[in-house]
């Protein structure tokens, strides 16, 4: 009885009522909440698994850019030809992935980076990189002065 009395007085306060409404709402959604609990590790893992459709793409992309930089440093600018869709790096949701320009700018720091999707052209820069996604990749492979690092062709200027 004492418990019941105490229980009813809780609801006499408007503030407390509001709190219990929120609490009830949370209980109703507890099955959803539970899925995302388990200290969040499953959650992080599941986001990471999205990468499986193209395993390690971003890591490879990143690693190969580092190889390109080790091969030839730049002094002021880099031109990167690639045709990766704009949203490709953003499919991972929670990780909010990098985009090409920021990654390349970071790897070739402090050189400026021009990312181009158009046909190959004569552009003045220290280094020209052609990614495998670009339509002219095969054509560029046969050109002179080129160096191939897996997914990239590098031209020193």
């Amino acid at each position, binding site marked *: 009885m004492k418990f019941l009395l105490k229980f009813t007085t809780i609801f006499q*306060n408007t*503030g*407390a009522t*509001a*709190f219990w409404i*929120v*609490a009830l*709402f*949370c209980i109703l*959604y507890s099955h959803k*909440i539970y899925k*995302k*609990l388990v*200290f*969040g*590790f499953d*959650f*992080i*893992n599941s*986001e*990471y698994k999205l990468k499986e459709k193209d395993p390690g793409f971003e*890591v490879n992309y*990143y690693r190969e850019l580092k190889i390109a930089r080790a091969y030839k440093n730049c002094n002021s600018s880099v031109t990167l030809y690639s045709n990766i869709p704009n949203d490709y790096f953003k499919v991972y949701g*929670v*990780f*909010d*992935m*990098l*985009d090409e*320009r*920021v*990654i390349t*700018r*970071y790897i070739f*720091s*402090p050189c*400026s*980076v021009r990312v181009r999707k158009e046909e190959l052209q004569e552009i003045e820069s220290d280094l020209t990189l052609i990614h495998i996604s670009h339509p002219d990749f095969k054509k560029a492979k046969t050109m002179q002065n080129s160096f191939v690092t897996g997914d990239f062709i590098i031209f020193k200027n």
Partner: protein
Amino acid sequence: MYGFLNFFTFNLILFPVLSLLLLLLIPPGNLLLFRLLSFIGLVTWNILFLKKFKLDFKINKPNSMQILSVIAFFAGLYAIFFRFSLQPEGGSWDAFGMWNVKSRDYMETFLNGERFKLIFSDWVNPSYPIFIPLSITFFQINMGEWNYYIPMMYHTMIYLFHFIIIFNFLKDIKKGILPVYLILNIFLILPIITSASNQIADFPISTFICLVVYFIHKLESTSLDNRDSRDIIMLSIALFAVLHIKEEGMILAGISLGFLFIFTNLRSDKNLLKILIPTLFLGIILLVVYKKISPVTLQFTVTPKEIWEHIFDWKRYTVLMKYYLYHQQLILYSDIIVLSLCLFFMRAKRKYILIPISISLVYFGILIITTFNQEWQVITASGRLQTQALQVLYLVALILYEENNP
């Protein structure tokens, strides 16, 4: 533990300041001189500071809440390393766009013997504050080449700093369900969220604003005659740091200063004003100068007409509410739970709730009037903005719990 808090704050401020001074003053490319002066600077600063501050580095026997916080801290630390193991390059767009590119530019130009440039016009956000890039540069240059683990270590250091603030606060707290819930949120949920997304860049600013709230409360709880000038200095430099960490710092500093001057008796403390106002003045001047030099001042501008239209566009509110209801991820409605508990069950010092509420309201307003694609901005920004408010909310809830359960 109070000694550790002071020690950490002073050194976290020293790294970017020393880095900037050395980059400006010493000949580019002279790594030996950079290392030598860094060492002398760090040692001198710490000896002077320790002598002047007479800090107590004793760690008393921890209470049960502090022990829980240590366990949760290590679990959160594991979450951070777990995340970095999944994505070895560390960080996401924000971390690279705001920090890593900038710090690498500073480091590379210095090591290549080129003249120091404060702003590179092709940065994605050239006007973004440089407190963190300069801190990372300090370690990177001393390493002699770019080290991919330094940004991760810096993030871990900030996480440890946040732990010290909370651990220090927990020394006088009574056992209870609410503090347990808050500790688990602070050290498990927050690090997972911040580590799992680009919010790594938002963690430091919310940690420093927590430090501001911690010292406002500490000073307000002490009588005018017993106020420690060390606390006043700490509050001032924490506010200085907040202004220079992220663009949101201007909002956060404005809110906490507004609270300090309107709702606390600190406004009549002459000693406080003597230290706080010149420090803030210097901070604001430096920020204005930096923004003036930058080719872009703010990320987006909005006209009064646009504000008017966006405020009365109800679809914009629906987008935000839908996102809030269905994209809670790991937060698990803890913001509304903690807020409700504080509002309805805490009486003493309830005014402190105004700080996290104001932060949330300002961000809510920004997401309503934004000139970017609203849905895109809500998805990419609201989570991290919410985390900033959450970190402060949890600390405020601990403060209120302590005040209401003496």
